[in-house]
């Protein structure tokens, strides 16, 4: 299997492992330098990955931190600010099973007593991959398959090397917010008809959102 992730001189698995190793906040930049133009999108980026992310997949971003939510209950753009530096985590709907999601959500909520499962937003991968910013007609976001041992459905959104200026980065957040529904948050009991929600510990389900 190893070796299939090499494109010319670009070893996508090795780059994925090395990016951000020294400084996690430069992970996206490190990656773009080593693998420009989204060239690793068609490659597996993790040994735990079943396959690269295809355009017809839907990816979901989970909302756990109250600081990502506005006073009116809608999202602010900060939910997507990780696309600039560390990578913005999403779940691949075609791959994530209920049996994997429940422990993953539970573990996340247990990291911090202020976290609650506020909801989800979703977008098609093709919509994300078609995003641009006004200063460039090149793609602005790559979607990479970065599966984790306990979470094989894990993928990440990285801005590309064509998003340069600080204002471009803000525009990209606006575009991502639109692609993921414009700010409306899907309630957790509506996600997959509530089957994941009902499996979450009632104590965690009852946590109030604390700003």
């Amino acid at each position, binding site marked *: 299997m190893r070796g299939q992730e090499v494109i010319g001189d670009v070893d996508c698995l090795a780059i994925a492992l090395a990016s951000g190793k020294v400084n996690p906040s430069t992970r996206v930049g490190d990656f773009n330098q080593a693998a420009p133009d989204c060239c690793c999108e068609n490659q597996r980026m993790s040994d735990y990955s079943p396959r690269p992310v295809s355009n017809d997949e839907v990816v979901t971003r989970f909302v756990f931190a109250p*600081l990502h939510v506005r006073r009116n209950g809608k999202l602010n753009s*900060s939910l997507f600010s990780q696309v600039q530096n560390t990578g913005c985590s999403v779940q691949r709907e075609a791959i994530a099973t209920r049996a994997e999601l429940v422990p993953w959500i539970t573990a996340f909520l247990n990291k911090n007593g202020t976290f609650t499962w506020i909801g989800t937003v979703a977008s098609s991968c093709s919509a994300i991959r078609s995003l641009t910013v006004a200063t460039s007609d090149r793609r602005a976001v790559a979607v990479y398959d970065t599966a984790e041992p306990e979470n094989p459905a894990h993928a990440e959104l990285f801005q590309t090397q064509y998003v340069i200026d600080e*204002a471009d980065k803000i525009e990209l957040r606006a575009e991502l917010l639109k692609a993921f529904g414009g700010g409306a948050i899907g309630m957790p009991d509506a996600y997959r008809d509530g089957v994941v929600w009902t499996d979450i510990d009632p104590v965690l389900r009852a946590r109030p959102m604390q700003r």
Partner: protein
Amino acid sequence: MSATQYIGTAGTAAVLAFGINLCPSTANSFGSEFAVRNISKIATTLPASARKRQAGSSFSTHDFGAAANDQVVQSNVAERQTSPVERIVGEMRRWTALSDDWDGQGASAPLEQSVKEAVAFVRMLAPGIPLPDPMVHANGRAGLFWQDGQMYADLEFLGDGRMAYYIERTGDKHKGVVHFDLLNLPPVFHPLLQG
């Protein structure tokens, strides 16, 4: 009524004390300092520890504490509700308690200078206009966010005296980076500042 009344949480956001009209539009301080307006009106009611600072533009919470402990101050001035702007400022000040990984996904702790700049911007907003939601990004920078049917605006305070912005309004898009000079902002900011 007690001489000192604290409103908000952790004693940080909004404090009403001795009927002082805390001035959200002129403060340039951060942390426990509060700018005050009409300070001369209350100077004679303050204990010596507080009077020492009356010539300055800021007022320390230590002074409030000293006054309360001395129990020498009484006030008949009516209570005032925390204003929406003060609530936003209070929320941003509470971010100082956040550490790295506040989002569970590796975010950096809020950057103090960036938060200061965002606070200064919020204090410039005219009364009665739509207020932004404060936000903090994964890189630790503070931001302000507006989104309604008419306008989308996202400001990010870079913490080095500059502010990046992206504004959509009436079909037009504006973006750029400006030096953070509250008195000389481009016209595109006027709807944010004045409604």
